[in-house]
């Protein structure tokens, strides 16, 4: 293959300077400021029925345009999860419901001319609640006496093992080999439960949506979303109107991380606009974003890991209890990754595995999609168990991984029997150990000032899109003067996919990236794309771009052949134009573009749609050095080194920053971030004061490198990077803290208080 010119280059993001200079590009910057302001009254109870609700006084507040209650909304249940239809997530929502299922659940919708009027009206809505006993503990949910969804019109569209009369959102068991038999023959079995509480994506731009009626009588939605096409379907379901009546577009997005793969804010202004005909917007407060959104699923992962004396890992048994909260968004799907993307890391010598799970409803904030999507939780558990095993056997945790890790060419029974076509996990490990200085840093060092330094390690994998499900499309068009328009339905949420996909197009069309104008995403104008989630955009949509460009080149050659009076097979595409192979003439792209607009019947616009039957995993190794203060239990991360195999990094700068961002989120998850509740079901971390995310003083020094493999099914050999990067910090940090203190922390976040108490308890 020729040397790549654009792919693999650290191209500046197309929108970089606009973003850095604060240009008005986000939803609330671009919509009319005189639209209605929409607000939601939220339940003060974890479980209650609305006995009476009186909005008369609220309606009379000057400036208030409408107040809606459960009596006003369609009675068909739907899910807010942005997934391919039929969604695995159950249809368990109404826009407003008489039954309230968590503190923060929507009680009423207010639309007013301004915020002050809306706020005033919220206070004047009179509600009489019949407070019910709540089920907050996931252990008590399954087959317990309190049902979160007793209603008869609850529906599960897919066979995911759900039963609302048991508080069960999903359940499954799968296995390969006889896990009990192998475990019974192992010299050692590590048997522990690991707990990762819910945590919030905390993207800096909260959920927000603007809606208006367009001149054709359709609902026009501008939303900060990762999934324009799913938003269209979900709003149509929620409002019970035809999908043809809805048009969704996304502007620049202030971060998503999966949060915006759920239709969190959209339904409220959409309902208001549909009812009143007036333009409306809803901007979530930070508090709403923390208490009534779509955080990571709280999961308890029980691992039994069997090995022989020499460290051969022979069997892994994983049972996950996932808490989906009040509604089932992404409940049936996130949980699968907790086993299917942790166990396969140890395919090397594995003789048997079993993976079982239950996903239960409780009266807590409903969960959703967050970067890592269940893999993060499972990898914390399995990687911790492997570190515990290494400690028990007195083996080097790097060596035990090298002995057991999955390698290129292996079939992974726990990963849908997919084969690793491209896997540089072994090289990631040796490179990481060398860059980090594992040999020198692994031994525990007492610094003599009450502080101890130690190191920890973890591996990770993820997928690249949802195999056989995700669809990516690209439309590429030759325009005046010979530039190209690239339209996509994938959503750039800051990750830079607009630029990355343009790089691929530029590579295929042999032109500068500046010659590719990117457009997306718009449900009317973009070709269909499932959306930007599941680490799919580079891998799935990227392939569509590659194929679309291929087809376009053929069409351009056909037009040029007419102009050059020869057969299409007698010309070649040069990047600047098309020339006859016999040297008998050449036409420029501009000539072809001009010709395409005059007496032409060959399209200069091509759409290609791609889906992949496989989901090749990226792999990664992370190593942390940290310092524990024995007096305070404080943990300071000093160094974090990671080596990633994402296949070919299309844009090494953006891949690096994705990795760094994911690691820092992972550090937050390991050390500070976690959602907790009081006994009444009130969520305690309802502001960025209580929900502490890492600052630039909390992360130490990061070093990220790439060990590339070449994935034959991906565009230019690429796999994915967006999600995997959050997976290593929790287990690596827990490992290092054990090394420093002698205490395993099996529940996140590992706060100074827990570290100190742990050391005290140990004596």
């Amino acid at each position, binding site marked *: 293959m020729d040397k790549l010119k654009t792919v693999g280059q650290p191209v500046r993001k197309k929108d970089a300077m606009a973003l850095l200079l*604060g240009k008005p590009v986000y939803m609330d910057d671009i919509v009319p400021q005189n639209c209605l302001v929409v607000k939601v009254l939220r339940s003060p109870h974890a479980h209650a029925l609305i006995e009476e609700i009186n909005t008369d006084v609220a309606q009379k507040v000057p400036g208030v345009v409408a107040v809606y209650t459960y009596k006003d909304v369609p009675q068909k249940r739907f899910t807010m999860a942005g997934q391919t239809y039929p969604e695995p997530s159950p249809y368990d929502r109404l826009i407003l419901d008489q039954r309230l299922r968590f503190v923060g659940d929507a009680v009423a919708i207010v639309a007013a001319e301004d915020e002050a009027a809306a706020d005033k009206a919220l206070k004047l809505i009179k509600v009489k609640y019949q407070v019910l006993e709540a089920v907050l503990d996931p252990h008590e949910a399954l087959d317990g006496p309190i049902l979160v969804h007793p209603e008869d019109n609850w529906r599960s569209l897919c066979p995911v093992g759900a039963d609302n009369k048991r508080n069960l959102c999903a359940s499954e068991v799968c296995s390969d080999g006889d896990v009990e038999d192998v475990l019974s023959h192992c010299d050692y079995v590590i048997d522990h439960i690991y707990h990762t509480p819910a945590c919030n994506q905390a993207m800096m731009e909260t959920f927000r949506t603007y809606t208006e009626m367009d001149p054709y009588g359709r609902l026009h939605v501008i939303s900060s979303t990762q999934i324009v096409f799913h938003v269209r379907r979900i709003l149509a379901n929620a409002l019970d109107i035809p999908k043809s009546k809805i048009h969704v577009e996304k502007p620049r997005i202030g971060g998503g991380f999966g949060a915006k793969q759920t239709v969190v804010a959209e339904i409220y202004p959409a309902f208001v606009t549909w009812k009143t005909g007036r333009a409306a917007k809803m901007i979530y407060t930070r508090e709403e974003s923390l208490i009534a959104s779509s955080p990571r699923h709280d999961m308890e992962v029980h691992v039994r890991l069997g090995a022989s004396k020499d460290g051969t890992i022979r069997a892994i048994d994983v049972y996950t209890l996932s808490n989906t909260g009040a509604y089932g968004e992404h409940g049936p799907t996130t949980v699968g990754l907790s086993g299917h993307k942790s166990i396969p890391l140890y395919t090397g010598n594995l003789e048997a595995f079993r993976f079982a799970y239950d996903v239960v409803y409780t009266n807590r904030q409903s969960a959703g999609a967050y970067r890592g999507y269940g893999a993060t939780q499972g990898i914390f558990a399995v990687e911790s168990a492997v570190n515990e095993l290494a400690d028990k056997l007195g083996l080097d945790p790097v060596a035990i991984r090298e002995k057991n890790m999955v390698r290129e060419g292996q079939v992974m029974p726990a990963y849908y029997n997919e084969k690793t076509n491209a896997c540089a996990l072994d090289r990631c490990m040796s490179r990481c150990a060398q860059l980090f200085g594992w040999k020198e840093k692994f031994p525990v060092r007492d610094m003599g000032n009450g502080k101890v330094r130690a190191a920890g390690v973890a591996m990770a994998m993820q997928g690249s899109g949802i195999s056989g499900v995700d669809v990516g499309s690209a439309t590429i068009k030759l325009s005046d003067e010979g530039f190209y328009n690239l339209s996509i339905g994938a959503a750039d949420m800051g990750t830079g996919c607009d630029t990355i996909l343009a790089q691929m197009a530029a590579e295929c069309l042999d032109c500068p990236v500046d010659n590719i104008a990117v457009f997306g995403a718009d449900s009317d104008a973009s070709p269909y794309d499932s959306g930007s989630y599941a680490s799919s955009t580079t891998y799935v949509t990227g392939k569509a771009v590659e194929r679309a460009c291929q087809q376009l080149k053929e069409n351009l050659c056909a037009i040029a052949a007419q102009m050059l009076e020869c057969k299409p097979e007698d010309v070649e595409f040069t990047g600047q134009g098309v020339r006859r192979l016999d040297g008998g003439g050449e036409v420029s792209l501009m000539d072809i573009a001009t010709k395409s607009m005059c007496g032409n019947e060959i399209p200069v616009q091509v759409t290609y749609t791609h889906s992949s039957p496989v989901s090749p995993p990226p792999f990664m190794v992370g190593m942390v050095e940290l310092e524990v203060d024995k007096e305070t239990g404080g943990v300071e991360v000093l160094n974090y080194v990671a080596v990633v195999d994402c296949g070919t990094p299309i844009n090494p700068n953006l891949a690096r920053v994705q990795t760094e961002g994911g690691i820092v989120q992972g550090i937050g998850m390991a050390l500070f971030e976690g959602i907790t509740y009081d006994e009444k079901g009130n969520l305690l971390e309802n502001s960025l004061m209580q929900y502490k995310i890492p600052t630039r003083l909390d992360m130490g020094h990061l070093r990220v490198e790439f060990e590339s493999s070449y994935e034959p099914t991906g565009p230019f050999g690429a796999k994915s990077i967006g999600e995997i990067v959050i997976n290593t910090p929790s287990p690596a940090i827990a490992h290092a803290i054990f090394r420093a203190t002698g205490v395993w922390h099996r529940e996140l976040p590992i706060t100074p208080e827990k570290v100190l108490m742990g050391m005290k308890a140990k004596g």
Partner: protein
Amino acid sequence: MELKLTLNGRAVAASVEADTLLIDFLRAQGCLSVKRGCETANCGLCTVLMDGTPVLSCSVLALRAAGHHIQTLEGLQEEAADFAAFIADQGAEQCGFCNPGFVMNTVALLRENPDPTDDEIRAYLAGNLCRCSGYEGQLRGIRAYLDHKKGRG
């Protein structure tokens, strides 16, 4: 109530409520670079300069700005573009939502201390949260700019 101040070098007179926050006033004036990320003065997204000093506009009443000179990123485009290009070259702008606040505070830092160490940069910008970039790329960008400036000067 009547509020008079200088906004990005321009005299502005407007009527505001007693409880109008500076951030809301500025956005209503078309300074849409000013972003809100929280309600608790924790994120730094709303940073603007008051008489050259960075303040959190979500935590200042608009009336407190009476008679003062407020600068937002709209008014500092060239000064910011100078170093922002180096951050762009790292790909560290990411979603960009935190960028205006972070850039404003960086302007203030570089005015105060034209040659900061990495630790001084981290400390000065500690109040500017970013959920996307992991901070390291922002630092590399600022460092590259400072190195470039030295090479030039």
